[in-house]
């Protein structure tokens, strides 16, 4: 084969290769918009959840660190100061009028003041907070064990998830942040409703007056500015029906990885 033909073939192959690459990339972007294909990709979430829970065990606890490991600058995630008149009024008063409303599938729907929550069994832990974007910060949290709150209200047998409804509006329509936790995570000893961070009253950027710590999940599972907790058997009719604000935007409900 002479050189010019060889060169022509090389050019052809090079062109064909980049053409195929462009087609494949375009194809992948098209696939990302295809609901049936995304459902196939979604199947990995159930596999990850099942396998991770099976090999780590229900009671596995997240690593706890020392004071020396605390992040010098803990970056606050999501909302930093809820743009909501009702919330701002509560904040001006030091959350003295704030009440945590616990209801749904419970025996005794109850409202708790901060003082009442502080009187319940608490836990203090220094843990690593992993944001879905990839960064990690280490903070010290003190709060009431969620299981202790559940003991107060009496969770009914049909309940499967705890839903957290928050004060922070996420869009111009006033839709507010909400999240879910499986009861397995909700009853975990490290799962607390934190009212203190780094030995101070929980500051507003970190979710004052009360936020969730769900230490074996990514950051977006840990609702801030909690106003109401509801025990439910299904979240199909809440928000977009996927179990949380970010879940409705396409993120996994099982955020173990």
């Amino acid at each position, binding site marked *: 084969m002479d050189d010019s033909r060889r060169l022509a073939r090389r050019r052809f192959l090079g062109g064909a290769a980049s053409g195929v690459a462009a087609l494949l990339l375009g194809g992948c972007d098209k696939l990302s918009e295809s609901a049936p294909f995304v459902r196939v990709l979604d199947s990995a979430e159930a596999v990850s959840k099942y396998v991770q829970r099976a090999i780590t065990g229900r009671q596995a606890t997240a690593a706890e660190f020392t004071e020396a490991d605390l992040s010098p600058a803990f970056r606050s995630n999501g909302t930093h100061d809820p743009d909501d008149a009702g919330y701002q009024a509560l904040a001006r008063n030091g959350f003295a009028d704030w009440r945590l409303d616990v209801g749904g599938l419970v025996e005794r729907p109850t409202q708790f003041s901060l003082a009442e929550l502080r009187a319940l069994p608490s836990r203090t832990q220094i843990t690593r907070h992993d944001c879905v974007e990839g960064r990690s910060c280490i903070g010290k949290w003190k709060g009431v064990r969620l299981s202790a709150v559940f003991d107060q209200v009496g969770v009914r047998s049909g309940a499967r998830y705890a839903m957290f409804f928050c004060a922070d509006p996420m869009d111009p329509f006033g839709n507010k942040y909400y999240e879910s936790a499986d009861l397995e995570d909700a009853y975990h000893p490290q799962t607390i409703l934190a009212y203190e961070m780094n030995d101070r009253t929980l500051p507003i950027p970190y979710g004052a007056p009360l936020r969730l710590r769900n230490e074996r*999940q990514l950051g977006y599972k840990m609702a801030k500015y909690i106003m109401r907790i509801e025990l439910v058997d299904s979240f199909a009719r809440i928000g977009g029906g996927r179990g949380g604000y970010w879940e409705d935007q396409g993120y996994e409900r099982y955020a173990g990885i």
Partner: protein
Amino acid sequence: MASRVRQSGRNEAGSSESFRRDRVYRHSVLVRATHWINLVCMTVLLMSGLQIFNAHPALYWGDRSDFDSPILAIGAERDAAGQGAGVTTVLGRTFDTTGVLGLSGGADIQEPRAFPAWATLPSSQWLAMGRRWHFFFAWIFVVNGAAYLLYGLARGHFRRDFLPSGWDLRHIGRSVWDHLRLRFPRGEEAKRYNVLQKITYLAVVFVLVPLIVLAGLSMSPRIDAGFPWLPALFGGRQSARTVHFVCAFALLGFVAVHIVMVLLSGVWNNMRAMITGWYDLGDPGGDRG
């Protein structure tokens, strides 16, 4: 590599002489299948991985992210004249990477993003979708790799074909010299991998790939709860994230060299071997088409 050899006689049109060529059955069907599945997985994992990295384009060492002292950071800046620039900082040294890293796009619109659109999956900034692609293909990659590993161990593929002999190791200098001159073995010698191939494949299969999988798992808060020694192995979750990133580019480097070697040592012969299994011993550099 199996040692089955086929003598193929063939008349070439227009040629008066007939000749015989030796073909060797080089790759079993499982190796061929896992190889191509692997190619798809690694492509998707790399590109969706860069999508995920773009969500927070900085790397750290230790358990936590100390935002003031990243090992690597990619960002966009605007100078006094209002001109945008892509800036990459590695171990305190800053480079202008406009057009590729930090700031990239078409001639008219430049977008601030760490890795450019052509390198990420999806091409637009879409973390949730990148994660779905990544974790789905991570499972395929692991299952595919496990099948290859079990097969290789059971059939003695690694011991027979990857483990360098004493002779290999003593003649490593010669192999390096052969590679530098782009001299590739023919005939009997071409039935076996050369010593540099053996060492490279061992390093990829038994070091690099396990490392990238374990480093990836170390970023999972639930896995870390079950196996606290795993992130500790890397020096913390953020170190594991850095190792994961470095391993990805080490694998990319391996693939680049692999492709160059395939092209140089006879692309059709190599492709045929990885598709049909049969490798032509007499046809190492031949580009007959």
